[in-house]
Protein backbone atom coordinates (compact mmCIF):
# COMPACT_ATOMS: atom_id res chain seq x y z
CA UNK A 1 0.00 0.00 0.00
CA UNK A 2 1.19 3.52 -0.67
CA UNK A 3 1.16 4.33 2.97
CA UNK A 4 3.21 7.43 2.26
CA UNK A 5 0.64 8.72 -0.16
CA UNK A 6 -2.04 8.40 2.47
CA UNK A 7 0.03 10.22 5.06
CA UNK A 8 0.65 12.97 2.51
CA UNK A 9 -3.02 13.06 1.69
CA UNK A 10 -3.96 13.43 5.35
CA UNK A 11 -1.43 16.22 5.82
CA UNK A 12 -2.73 18.07 2.78
CA UNK A 13 -6.26 17.70 3.97
CA UNK A 14 -5.29 18.99 7.38
CA UNK A 15 -3.86 22.09 5.69
CA UNK A 16 -7.07 22.37 3.68
CA UNK A 17 -9.23 22.21 6.76
CA UNK A 18 -7.14 24.90 8.42
CA UNK A 19 -7.80 27.11 5.38
CA UNK A 20 -11.52 26.31 5.61
CA UNK A 21 -11.55 27.19 9.30
CA UNK A 22 -9.70 30.45 8.61
CA UNK A 23 -12.24 31.37 5.96
CA UNK A 24 -15.07 30.50 8.30
CA UNK A 25 -13.85 32.50 11.27
CA UNK A 26 -12.61 35.49 9.31
CA UNK A 27 -15.92 35.75 7.48
CA UNK A 28 -17.79 35.75 10.79
CA UNK A 29 -15.33 38.24 12.26
CA UNK A 30 -16.02 40.73 9.47
CA UNK A 31 -19.64 39.99 8.58
CA UNK A 32 -21.11 40.10 12.09
CA UNK A 33 -20.15 43.73 12.78
CA UNK A 34 -20.45 44.86 9.14
CA UNK A 35 -24.08 43.75 9.06
CA UNK A 36 -25.05 46.24 11.77
CA UNK A 37 -24.49 49.47 9.81
CA UNK A 38 -26.09 47.78 6.79
CA UNK A 39 -29.19 46.96 8.85
CA UNK A 40 -29.23 50.54 10.16
CA UNK A 41 -28.92 51.90 6.64
CA UNK A 42 -31.79 49.72 5.51
CA UNK A 43 -33.97 51.07 8.34
CA UNK A 44 -32.84 54.67 7.95
CA UNK A 45 -35.43 57.42 7.64
CA UNK A 46 -33.26 58.86 4.87
CA UNK A 47 -34.97 57.47 1.78
CA UNK A 48 -31.86 57.60 -0.40
CA UNK A 49 -29.79 55.65 2.12
CA UNK A 50 -32.55 53.13 2.82
CA UNK A 51 -33.23 52.73 -0.89
CA UNK A 52 -29.63 52.24 -1.95
CA UNK A 53 -29.02 49.82 0.91
CA UNK A 54 -32.05 47.88 -0.23
CA UNK A 55 -30.71 47.70 -3.80
CA UNK A 56 -27.39 46.47 -2.45
CA UNK A 57 -29.15 43.80 -0.40
CA UNK A 58 -31.29 42.73 -3.36
CA UNK A 59 -28.22 42.34 -5.57
CA UNK A 60 -26.18 40.43 -3.00
CA UNK A 61 -29.03 38.15 -2.04
CA UNK A 62 -30.27 37.80 -5.58
CA UNK A 63 -27.08 36.61 -7.27
CA UNK A 64 -25.03 33.45 -6.70
CA UNK A 65 -22.25 33.61 -4.14
CA UNK A 66 -20.00 31.92 -6.69
CA UNK A 67 -20.56 34.77 -9.12
CA UNK A 68 -19.72 37.26 -6.39
CA UNK A 69 -16.49 35.39 -5.65
CA UNK A 70 -15.51 35.59 -9.32
CA UNK A 71 -16.33 39.29 -9.54
CA UNK A 72 -14.34 40.16 -6.44
CA UNK A 73 -11.34 38.08 -7.47
CA UNK A 74 -11.17 38.92 -11.16
CA UNK A 75 -12.78 42.36 -10.94
CA UNK A 76 -9.68 44.47 -10.18
CA UNK A 77 -7.65 42.88 -12.97
CA UNK A 78 -10.42 43.34 -15.50
CA UNK A 79 -10.86 46.90 -14.31
CA UNK A 80 -7.16 47.69 -14.90
CA UNK A 81 -7.37 46.24 -18.42
CA UNK A 82 -10.52 48.19 -19.11
CA UNK A 83 -8.84 51.38 -17.87
CA UNK A 84 -5.85 50.68 -20.12
CA UNK A 85 -8.11 50.18 -23.11
CA UNK A 86 -9.69 53.53 -22.30
CA UNK A 87 -6.22 55.01 -22.30
CA UNK A 88 -5.79 55.43 -18.53
CA UNK A 89 -3.27 54.02 -16.17
CA UNK A 90 -3.82 54.68 -12.51
CA UNK A 91 -1.01 53.64 -10.21
CA UNK A 92 -3.29 52.80 -7.32
CA UNK A 93 -5.28 50.25 -9.31
CA UNK A 94 -2.12 48.72 -10.73
CA UNK A 95 -0.83 48.35 -7.20
CA UNK A 96 -4.10 46.93 -5.99
CA UNK A 97 -4.14 44.45 -8.85
CA UNK A 98 -0.60 43.25 -8.27
CA UNK A 99 -1.30 42.79 -4.58
CA UNK A 100 -4.64 41.12 -5.14
CA UNK A 101 -4.72 37.52 -3.96
CA UNK A 102 -7.19 34.68 -3.91
CA UNK A 103 -7.51 34.39 -0.15
CA UNK A 104 -8.38 38.02 0.68
CA UNK A 105 -10.73 38.07 -2.29
CA UNK A 106 -12.53 35.04 -0.88
CA UNK A 107 -12.80 36.63 2.58
CA UNK A 108 -14.08 39.90 1.17
CA UNK A 109 -16.69 38.28 -1.06
CA UNK A 110 -17.93 35.97 1.69
CA UNK A 111 -17.99 38.78 4.26
CA UNK A 112 -20.03 41.04 2.00
CA UNK A 113 -22.37 38.21 1.08
CA UNK A 114 -22.93 37.08 4.65
CA UNK A 115 -23.23 40.60 6.03
CA UNK A 116 -26.22 41.05 3.70
CA UNK A 117 -27.97 38.00 5.13
CA UNK A 118 -27.01 38.91 8.69
CA UNK A 119 -28.24 42.47 8.13
CA UNK A 120 -31.70 41.23 7.24
CA UNK A 121 -31.73 39.05 10.35
CA UNK A 122 -30.63 42.00 12.50
CA UNK A 123 -33.31 44.16 10.93
CA UNK A 124 -36.01 41.61 11.69
CA UNK A 125 -34.75 41.41 15.26
CA UNK A 126 -34.58 45.16 15.75
CA UNK A 127 -38.03 45.70 14.29
CA UNK A 128 -39.48 43.05 16.59
CA UNK A 129 -38.57 45.02 19.72
CA UNK A 130 -41.79 46.59 21.05
CA UNK A 131 -42.18 50.35 20.79
CA UNK A 132 -42.76 50.46 24.54
CA UNK A 133 -39.11 49.60 25.16
CA UNK A 134 -37.98 52.72 23.31
CA UNK A 135 -40.62 54.82 25.04
CA UNK A 136 -39.68 53.59 28.52
CA UNK A 137 -36.02 54.27 27.78
CA UNK A 138 -36.75 57.74 26.44
CA UNK A 139 -38.86 58.71 29.45
CA UNK A 140 -36.04 57.54 31.74
CA UNK A 141 -33.65 59.86 29.93
CA UNK A 142 -31.60 57.33 27.97
CA UNK A 143 -30.09 58.84 24.84
CA UNK A 144 -30.89 57.12 21.53
CA UNK A 145 -27.41 55.58 21.47
CA UNK A 146 -27.72 54.29 25.04
CA UNK A 147 -31.17 52.97 24.25
CA UNK A 148 -29.86 51.05 21.28
CA UNK A 149 -26.85 49.50 22.95
CA UNK A 150 -28.24 48.90 26.46
CA UNK A 151 -31.90 48.18 25.84
CA UNK A 152 -32.47 47.15 22.24
CA UNK A 153 -29.37 45.28 21.12
CA UNK A 154 -29.19 42.78 24.02
CA UNK A 155 -32.80 41.81 23.34
CA UNK A 156 -32.14 41.60 19.61
CA UNK A 157 -29.22 39.23 20.18
CA UNK A 158 -31.48 36.81 22.00
CA UNK A 159 -34.13 36.94 19.31
CA UNK A 160 -31.79 36.38 16.37
CA UNK A 161 -29.75 33.50 17.76
CA UNK A 162 -31.79 30.74 16.06
CA UNK A 163 -31.77 32.45 12.65
CA UNK A 164 -28.06 33.23 12.96
CA UNK A 165 -27.41 29.59 13.80
CA UNK A 166 -28.95 28.54 10.50
CA UNK A 167 -26.86 31.03 8.54
CA UNK A 168 -23.64 30.00 10.25
CA UNK A 169 -24.30 26.36 9.41
CA UNK A 170 -24.76 27.40 5.80
CA UNK A 171 -21.49 29.32 5.99
CA UNK A 172 -19.60 26.20 7.00
CA UNK A 173 -20.76 24.56 3.79
CA UNK A 174 -20.32 27.70 1.68
CA UNK A 175 -16.62 27.92 2.54
CA UNK A 176 -16.26 25.11 -0.01
CA UNK A 177 -17.36 27.47 -2.78
CA UNK A 178 -14.16 29.50 -2.66
CA UNK A 179 -12.40 26.72 -4.57
CA UNK A 180 -13.89 28.37 -7.66
CA UNK A 181 -11.24 31.07 -7.39
CA UNK A 182 -8.57 28.54 -6.54
CA UNK A 183 -8.31 28.86 -2.79
CA UNK A 184 -7.01 25.53 -1.56
CA UNK A 185 -9.61 24.83 1.06
CA UNK A 186 -10.62 21.40 2.22
CA UNK A 187 -12.95 20.35 -0.57
CA UNK A 188 -10.55 21.42 -3.29
CA UNK A 189 -7.73 19.48 -1.68
CA UNK A 190 -10.01 16.48 -1.26
CA UNK A 191 -10.97 16.59 -4.93
CA UNK A 192 -7.34 16.74 -6.03
CA UNK A 193 -6.31 13.86 -3.80
CA UNK A 194 -9.28 11.82 -4.86
CA UNK A 195 -8.24 11.92 -8.51
CA UNK A 196 -4.63 11.32 -7.57
CA UNK A 197 -5.31 8.32 -5.34
CA UNK A 198 -8.35 7.00 -7.21
CA UNK A 199 -9.92 6.74 -3.80
CA UNK A 200 -13.13 7.82 -2.23
CA UNK A 201 -11.43 8.34 1.13
CA UNK A 202 -10.49 12.04 0.75
CA UNK A 203 -14.06 13.00 -0.10
CA UNK A 204 -15.32 10.94 2.80
CA UNK A 205 -12.88 12.63 5.18
CA UNK A 206 -13.96 16.05 3.91
CA UNK A 207 -17.59 15.13 4.47
CA UNK A 208 -16.87 14.03 8.02
CA UNK A 209 -15.01 17.27 8.65
CA UNK A 210 -17.91 19.47 7.51
CA UNK A 211 -20.33 17.34 9.47
CA UNK A 212 -18.34 17.56 12.70
CA UNK A 213 -17.79 21.26 12.20
CA UNK A 214 -21.51 21.85 11.89
CA UNK A 215 -22.18 19.62 14.82
CA UNK A 216 -19.94 21.95 16.82
CA UNK A 217 -21.72 25.00 15.45
CA UNK A 218 -25.10 23.55 16.41
CA UNK A 219 -23.88 22.76 19.90
CA UNK A 220 -22.44 26.25 20.31
CA UNK A 221 -25.69 27.88 19.26
CA UNK A 222 -27.78 25.59 21.42
CA UNK A 223 -25.56 26.55 24.33
CA UNK A 224 -25.87 30.25 23.54
CA UNK A 225 -29.64 29.93 23.27
CA UNK A 226 -29.75 28.24 26.63
CA UNK A 227 -27.51 30.88 28.16
CA UNK A 228 -29.90 33.60 26.98
CA UNK A 229 -32.99 31.79 28.19
CA UNK A 230 -32.85 33.35 31.65
CA UNK A 231 -35.61 35.71 30.52
CA UNK A 232 -38.26 35.85 27.88
Amino acid sequence: MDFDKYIKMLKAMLDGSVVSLEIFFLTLLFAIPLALPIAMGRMSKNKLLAGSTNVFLLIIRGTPLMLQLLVVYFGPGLFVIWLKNMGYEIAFFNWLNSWWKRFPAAIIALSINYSAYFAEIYRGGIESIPKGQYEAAKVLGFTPVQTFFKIVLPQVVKRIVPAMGNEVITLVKDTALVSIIGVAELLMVAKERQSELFSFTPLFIAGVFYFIMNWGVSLAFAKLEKKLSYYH
Partner: protein
Amino acid sequence: MENTEQEIISIKNLRKSFGNTEIIKGISFSVYKGEVLGIIGPSGSGKSTILRCISQLETVTDGSISICGQPLVTDGVYVPKNQRHDIVLKSGLVFQNFNLFPHYSVLKNVTAAQIAVLKKSPEEARQTAMELLERMGLANKADNYPCELSGGQQQRVSIARALALKPEVLLFDEPTSALDPELTGEILAVIKELAEEKMTMVVVTHEMAFARDISSEVIFMDGGVIIEQGNPVEVINNPRTERTKAFLARFNN
Protein backbone atom coordinates in the same frame (compact mmCIF):
# COMPACT_ATOMS: atom_id res chain seq x y z
CA MET B 1 -53.48 80.91 46.95
CA GLU B 2 -52.08 79.60 43.70
CA ASN B 3 -49.28 82.13 43.79
CA THR B 4 -47.81 80.68 46.92
CA GLU B 5 -47.73 77.16 45.49
CA GLN B 6 -45.11 75.88 43.13
CA GLU B 7 -46.52 75.12 39.72
CA ILE B 8 -45.10 71.76 38.60
CA ILE B 9 -46.97 71.34 35.34
CA SER B 10 -48.45 74.17 33.34
CA ILE B 11 -50.36 73.39 30.16
CA LYS B 12 -51.88 76.13 28.07
CA ASN B 13 -54.04 75.70 25.02
CA LEU B 14 -52.54 72.36 24.13
CA ARG B 15 -53.43 71.04 20.70
CA LYS B 16 -52.39 67.81 19.11
CA SER B 17 -53.29 66.39 15.73
CA PHE B 18 -52.46 63.05 14.19
CA GLY B 19 -52.50 63.75 10.49
CA ASN B 20 -55.61 65.82 9.86
CA THR B 21 -57.44 64.61 12.96
CA GLU B 22 -57.25 66.91 15.94
CA ILE B 23 -57.19 64.75 19.06
CA ILE B 24 -56.48 67.40 21.72
CA LYS B 25 -58.43 70.55 21.02
CA GLY B 26 -57.08 73.26 23.25
CA ILE B 27 -56.59 72.06 26.81
CA SER B 28 -55.22 74.06 29.74
CA PHE B 29 -54.54 73.02 33.31
CA SER B 30 -51.96 73.29 36.04
CA VAL B 31 -50.67 70.86 38.61
CA TYR B 32 -49.18 72.26 41.80
CA LYS B 33 -46.66 70.70 44.11
CA GLY B 34 -48.11 67.92 46.25
CA GLU B 35 -51.31 67.80 44.23
CA VAL B 36 -52.84 64.75 42.62
CA LEU B 37 -54.70 65.43 39.40
CA GLY B 38 -57.08 62.69 38.30
CA ILE B 39 -57.99 62.53 34.63
CA ILE B 40 -61.07 60.54 33.66
CA GLY B 41 -62.96 60.22 30.42
CA PRO B 42 -64.10 57.77 27.78
CA SER B 43 -61.76 55.75 25.61
CA GLY B 44 -60.22 57.81 22.82
CA SER B 45 -60.82 61.13 24.55
CA GLY B 46 -57.08 61.90 24.51
CA LYS B 47 -56.02 61.18 28.08
CA SER B 48 -52.93 59.18 27.18
CA THR B 49 -52.01 61.67 24.49
CA ILE B 50 -51.79 64.44 27.09
CA LEU B 51 -49.43 62.42 29.29
CA ARG B 52 -47.39 61.48 26.23
CA CYS B 53 -47.07 65.13 25.23
CA ILE B 54 -45.79 65.98 28.72
CA SER B 55 -43.31 63.07 28.54
CA GLN B 56 -42.12 64.12 25.08
CA LEU B 57 -43.29 60.89 23.48
CA GLU B 58 -45.52 63.00 21.24
CA THR B 59 -44.85 66.38 19.71
CA VAL B 60 -47.60 68.92 20.30
CA THR B 61 -49.14 70.75 17.37
CA ASP B 62 -49.74 73.98 19.28
CA GLY B 63 -49.85 75.39 22.78
CA SER B 64 -47.44 75.54 25.71
CA ILE B 65 -46.10 73.13 28.30
CA SER B 66 -43.80 74.07 31.17
CA ILE B 67 -42.52 71.80 33.88
CA CYS B 68 -41.27 73.30 37.13
CA GLY B 69 -41.24 76.69 35.46
CA GLN B 70 -39.04 75.46 32.62
CA PRO B 71 -40.74 75.87 29.28
CA LEU B 72 -40.70 72.78 27.07
CA VAL B 73 -42.81 74.22 24.30
CA THR B 74 -44.22 77.72 23.96
CA ASP B 75 -47.04 78.32 21.47
CA GLY B 76 -46.01 75.23 19.55
CA VAL B 77 -42.29 76.08 19.49
CA TYR B 78 -40.01 73.67 21.33
CA VAL B 79 -36.89 74.63 23.25
CA PRO B 80 -33.64 73.20 21.77
CA LYS B 81 -33.07 69.46 22.08
CA ASN B 82 -30.35 69.69 24.72
CA GLN B 83 -32.75 71.47 27.11
CA ARG B 84 -35.50 68.93 26.53
CA HIS B 85 -33.43 66.15 28.08
CA ASP B 86 -33.35 67.90 31.48
CA ILE B 87 -37.07 68.45 31.31
CA VAL B 88 -37.88 64.82 30.52
CA LEU B 89 -36.24 63.84 33.80
CA LYS B 90 -38.54 66.11 35.79
CA SER B 91 -41.45 63.81 35.12
CA GLY B 92 -41.72 60.04 35.35
CA LEU B 93 -44.24 58.03 33.34
CA VAL B 94 -45.78 54.76 34.48
CA PHE B 95 -47.20 52.84 31.54
CA GLN B 96 -50.32 50.76 31.37
CA ASN B 97 -48.32 47.69 30.33
CA PHE B 98 -45.23 48.42 32.50
CA ASN B 99 -42.63 48.29 29.70
CA LEU B 100 -40.01 46.88 32.01
CA PHE B 101 -36.70 45.88 30.44
CA PRO B 102 -37.04 42.08 30.22
CA HIS B 103 -33.29 41.41 29.95
CA TYR B 104 -32.54 43.22 33.20
CA SER B 105 -33.20 41.89 36.67
CA VAL B 106 -35.67 43.78 38.83
CA LEU B 107 -32.77 45.51 40.56
CA LYS B 108 -31.11 46.48 37.31
CA ASN B 109 -34.39 47.84 35.95
CA VAL B 110 -34.32 50.31 38.83
CA THR B 111 -30.58 51.09 38.77
CA ALA B 112 -29.92 51.26 35.01
CA ALA B 113 -31.10 54.82 34.37
CA GLN B 114 -29.61 56.10 37.62
CA ILE B 115 -26.22 54.89 36.43
CA ALA B 116 -26.49 55.62 32.70
CA VAL B 117 -28.43 58.88 32.89
CA LEU B 118 -27.83 60.42 36.32
CA LYS B 119 -24.24 59.05 36.40
CA LYS B 120 -24.64 57.75 39.91
CA SER B 121 -22.20 55.16 41.18
CA PRO B 122 -23.46 51.57 40.99
CA GLU B 123 -23.35 51.32 44.77
CA GLU B 124 -25.38 54.48 45.30
CA ALA B 125 -27.85 53.42 42.62
CA ARG B 126 -28.22 50.03 44.22
CA GLN B 127 -28.94 51.57 47.58
CA THR B 128 -31.63 53.87 46.17
CA ALA B 129 -33.12 50.96 44.25
CA MET B 130 -33.20 48.65 47.25
CA GLU B 131 -34.90 51.30 49.40
CA LEU B 132 -37.56 51.75 46.73
CA LEU B 133 -38.03 48.02 46.20
CA GLU B 134 -38.37 47.66 49.96
CA ARG B 135 -41.14 50.24 49.94
CA MET B 136 -42.84 48.41 47.10
CA GLY B 137 -42.59 45.16 49.06
CA LEU B 138 -40.31 43.66 46.43
CA ALA B 139 -36.90 43.59 48.06
CA ASN B 140 -36.92 39.79 47.91
CA LYS B 141 -37.50 39.92 44.13
CA ALA B 142 -34.48 42.11 43.36
CA ASP B 143 -32.63 39.33 41.56
CA ASN B 144 -35.64 37.99 39.67
CA TYR B 145 -36.45 38.87 36.09
CA PRO B 146 -39.66 40.70 35.13
CA CYS B 147 -41.05 37.57 33.43
CA GLU B 148 -40.98 35.85 36.80
CA LEU B 149 -43.28 38.41 38.44
CA SER B 150 -47.03 38.91 38.51
CA GLY B 151 -48.49 41.89 36.67
CA GLY B 152 -48.99 43.76 39.92
CA GLN B 153 -45.40 43.15 40.95
CA GLN B 154 -44.15 44.25 37.54
CA GLN B 155 -46.12 47.46 37.81
CA ARG B 156 -44.63 48.12 41.25
CA VAL B 157 -41.16 47.64 39.79
CA SER B 158 -41.98 50.14 37.08
CA ILE B 159 -43.12 52.63 39.71
CA ALA B 160 -39.84 52.08 41.59
CA ARG B 161 -37.95 52.52 38.32
CA ALA B 162 -39.63 55.88 37.73
CA LEU B 163 -39.17 57.04 41.33
CA ALA B 164 -35.48 56.17 41.27
CA LEU B 165 -34.79 59.23 39.14
CA LYS B 166 -36.47 61.46 41.75
CA PRO B 167 -38.92 63.10 39.36
CA GLU B 168 -40.88 66.18 40.41
CA VAL B 169 -44.08 64.62 39.13
CA LEU B 170 -45.20 61.10 38.38
CA LEU B 171 -47.60 60.47 35.51
CA PHE B 172 -49.71 57.31 35.54
CA ASP B 173 -51.45 56.11 32.39
CA GLU B 174 -54.13 53.66 33.51
CA PRO B 175 -51.68 51.84 35.78
CA THR B 176 -54.15 49.07 36.62
CA SER B 177 -55.86 48.48 33.26
CA ALA B 178 -53.57 45.64 32.23
CA LEU B 179 -53.98 43.86 35.56
CA ASP B 180 -56.35 41.16 36.72
CA PRO B 181 -59.01 42.74 38.96
CA GLU B 182 -57.60 41.09 42.08
CA LEU B 183 -54.22 42.75 41.46
CA THR B 184 -55.41 46.32 40.97
CA GLY B 185 -55.70 46.87 44.72
CA GLU B 186 -51.97 46.57 45.38
CA ILE B 187 -51.17 49.24 42.79
CA LEU B 188 -53.87 51.58 43.97
CA ALA B 189 -52.52 51.19 47.52
CA VAL B 190 -49.03 52.17 46.36
CA ILE B 191 -50.32 55.26 44.56
CA LYS B 192 -52.39 56.20 47.58
CA GLU B 193 -49.32 55.95 49.78
CA LEU B 194 -47.41 58.19 47.41
CA ALA B 195 -50.27 60.69 47.54
CA GLU B 196 -50.10 60.70 51.31
CA GLU B 197 -46.39 61.44 51.06
CA LYS B 198 -47.32 64.45 48.93
CA MET B 199 -45.85 63.16 45.70
CA THR B 200 -47.13 65.30 42.85
CA MET B 201 -49.02 63.06 40.43
CA VAL B 202 -51.24 62.99 37.39
CA VAL B 203 -53.31 59.82 37.29
CA VAL B 204 -55.31 58.72 34.27
CA THR B 205 -57.67 56.03 35.47
CA HIS B 206 -60.95 54.24 34.91
CA GLU B 207 -61.26 53.55 38.64
CA MET B 208 -63.75 56.25 39.60
CA ALA B 209 -63.83 55.58 43.33
CA PHE B 210 -60.06 55.62 43.37
CA ALA B 211 -59.88 58.88 41.40
CA ARG B 212 -62.28 60.46 43.84
CA ASP B 213 -60.35 59.24 46.90
CA ILE B 214 -56.84 60.26 45.97
CA SER B 215 -57.24 63.27 43.69
CA SER B 216 -57.08 66.84 44.86
CA GLU B 217 -58.66 67.77 41.54
CA VAL B 218 -60.35 65.81 38.77
CA ILE B 219 -60.61 66.55 35.08
CA PHE B 220 -63.27 64.88 32.99
CA MET B 221 -62.43 65.05 29.33
CA ASP B 222 -64.19 63.93 26.21
CA GLY B 223 -63.42 64.43 22.55
CA GLY B 224 -60.15 66.23 23.24
CA VAL B 225 -61.57 68.96 25.48
CA ILE B 226 -62.07 69.35 29.23
CA ILE B 227 -65.78 69.02 29.96
CA GLU B 228 -65.64 69.40 33.69
CA GLN B 229 -62.93 70.14 36.21
CA GLY B 230 -62.84 70.59 39.94
CA ASN B 231 -63.21 68.99 43.33
CA PRO B 232 -63.24 65.19 42.85
CA VAL B 233 -66.27 64.60 45.03
CA GLU B 234 -68.18 67.29 43.18
CA VAL B 235 -67.26 66.05 39.73
CA ILE B 236 -67.74 62.37 40.40
CA ASN B 237 -70.70 62.44 42.80
CA ASN B 238 -72.55 65.51 41.46
CA PRO B 239 -71.52 66.06 37.85
CA ARG B 240 -72.88 69.26 36.34
CA THR B 241 -72.86 68.37 32.66
CA GLU B 242 -74.94 65.77 30.88
CA ARG B 243 -71.86 64.24 29.25
CA THR B 244 -70.16 63.67 32.59
CA LYS B 245 -73.37 62.21 33.99
CA ALA B 246 -73.73 59.85 31.05
CA PHE B 247 -70.11 58.74 31.35
CA LEU B 248 -70.28 58.15 35.10
CA ALA B 249 -73.62 56.36 34.86
CA ARG B 250 -71.83 53.54 33.08
CA PHE B 251 -69.53 53.03 36.07
CA ASN B 252 -72.15 53.12 38.77
CA ASN B 253 -73.86 49.90 37.88
